[in-house]
């Protein structure tokens, strides 16, 4: 009775309902969805899309797996974990960003150098999740540090507090398009260290996850969804001011007040991440997934290997 395979109800006017659970509060990275909604691209595909912001980032996968939502925005590492370790019926169908957005940051005053040699004896804050821990350890060992050279400190979910209250010297887990910009806007001088600079394989930052059983039943619906998203992204890319207006009009509200300056920074940071010269928006390739799957197994996050097709679908939605 949990409706795990459900592919959405139909509304009165014959549209299919699609609930999209975000990874985080609505912000610039989600503009393509709002453009698609604003311009009626979803409607043209016969879809009625509802955007839901989550309480916890894991909600997206959980909702999709249990059929409570049709699409969820999540991370590849979580998607692979869900499929391989938890046997949850989810798969990625498109990449929102072509590059990882999670980084490590330190205050410049801590003078942690790019080569990480200065990390010795320092405290590294992380959010207590396995994902972060693994990425930090991988990055550190890439820089030639042994686990006993530094101290990992679980700082709960509040990474910025840990950093700014100087209880740790560096934190792993902030997003390039969010905390980084917020801290800079607050006047903090910070250094940013992308994991990918330290041996963590490049992968997609955010992906669109769907319920794989539901996908089998109605692939056309999801393809339509992706088509609309792509159109939305085109608008987002071509019209910075329009996008910022849209953000301030549609995403910002009494309950989710957004700051135009902040979002502008976020937007500018994001565009090169969402589409690169190697990959268009939403596209994914086996090699990238394969490399990441292997890396995860190597780090002991997953117990076994899997094929890229176990964790993702490449719908042909032209």
């Amino acid at each position, binding site marked *: 009775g949990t409706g795990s395979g459900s592919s959405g109800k139909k509304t009165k006017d014959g549209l299919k309902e699609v609930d999209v659970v975000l990874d985080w509060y609505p912000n610039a990275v989600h503009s393509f969805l709002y453009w698609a909604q604003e311009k009626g691209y979803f409607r043209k595909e016969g879809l009625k899309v509802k955007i839901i912001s989550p*309480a916890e980032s894991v909600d997206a996968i959980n909702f999709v797996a249990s059929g409570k939502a049709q699409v969820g925005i999540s991370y590849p590492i979580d998607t692979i974990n869900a499929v391989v370790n938890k046997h949850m019926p989810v798969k990625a169908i498109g990449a929102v960003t072509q590059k990882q957005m999670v980084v490590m940051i330190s205050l410049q005053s801590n003078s942690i150098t790019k080569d990480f040699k200065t990390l010795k004896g320092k405290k590294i804050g992380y959010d207590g999740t396995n994902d972060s821990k693994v990425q930090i350890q991988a990055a550190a060992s890439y820089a030639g540090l042994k686990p006993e050279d530094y101290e990992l400190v679980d700082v709960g979910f509040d990474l910025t507090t840990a950093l700014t209250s100087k209880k740790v010297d560096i934190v792993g887990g902030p997003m390039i398009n969010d905390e980084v910009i*917020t801290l800079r806007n607050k006047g903090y001088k910070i250094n940013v260290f992308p994991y990918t600079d330290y041996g963590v394989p490049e992968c997609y930052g955010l992906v669109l996850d769907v319920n794989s059983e539901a996908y089998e039943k109605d692939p056309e619906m999801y393809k339509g969804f992706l088509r609309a998203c792509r159109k939305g992204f085109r608008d987002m890319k071509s019209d910075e001011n329009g996008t910022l207006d849209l953000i301030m009009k549609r995403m910002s509200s*009494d309950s989710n007040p957004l700051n135009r300056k902040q979002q502008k920074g976020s937007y500018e940071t994001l565009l090169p991440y969402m589409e690169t010269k190697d990959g268009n928006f939403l596209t994914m390739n086996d090699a990238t997934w394969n490399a990441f799957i292997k890396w995860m197994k190597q780090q002991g996050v997953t117990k076994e290997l899997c094929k890229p097709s176990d964790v993702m679908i490449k719908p042909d939605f032209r």
Partner: protein
Amino acid sequence: MPAAFLLLAVLVIWQIAADIIRIPHILPGPSAIIAKTWALRRTLFLVQLPYTFFSVLAGWGLAILFAVLLAVLMSRSSLLEDMIYPVLLVIQTVPVMCIAPLFVLWFGYTASGRILVIVLSTFFGIALNTFDGFREVDRGRMELMESFGAGRLQIFLRLEVPSALPRFLTGLKMTLPWAVVDSAVAEWLGATRGLGYFSKRMVTHMDGPGVFAPILVLCLVTIAGMAVIDLLDRRIAGHRSAL
């Protein structure tokens, strides 16, 4: 009077501490918080407060109903007590925060999930106090009622309820702030509005005064609620010390 004085003292110390530490997104001073509350007054009081207030009323109201029901059941027979009490204790030991993801899976981001969070965090205190109130009904008065040939319902309404009332009110006093605070927690677990949600949202903006402004409103709600309960306490539980 002493209350106002102490409050003032605390505020002053706090302000000084905030000025010294100068990390406003972690420890904003009271002046900044008050200014922020004023600046945000429209959204805080007209948009967020009604939303939160509804969950508090609904959640706490249900908790009271449920708690009294359980207390009554448990006080009727020791078999029921032995059956129900451990279950309550188990429920009570599970931190809502921990099983929130499961909650969210079961209920989604609906009001029922949030209300359940409040119920879970407050019913136990009320139930236990009320139950102990029932257990402490004076034996002599009980015998007297029985000698009148009073039925169980009569004894319940005319003796047990008034006898347990002071304890029940103690339970209310104890859980009121929790009902308020857990409405905020509940909103973190899934809501797109409300004072708690708003506060959490401001954390990501590193906007310290913005984090505490809704909390200030929560505090005001609590104080108002406390005043009402204290009034009730004086009115209907004055016989606490005559039992």
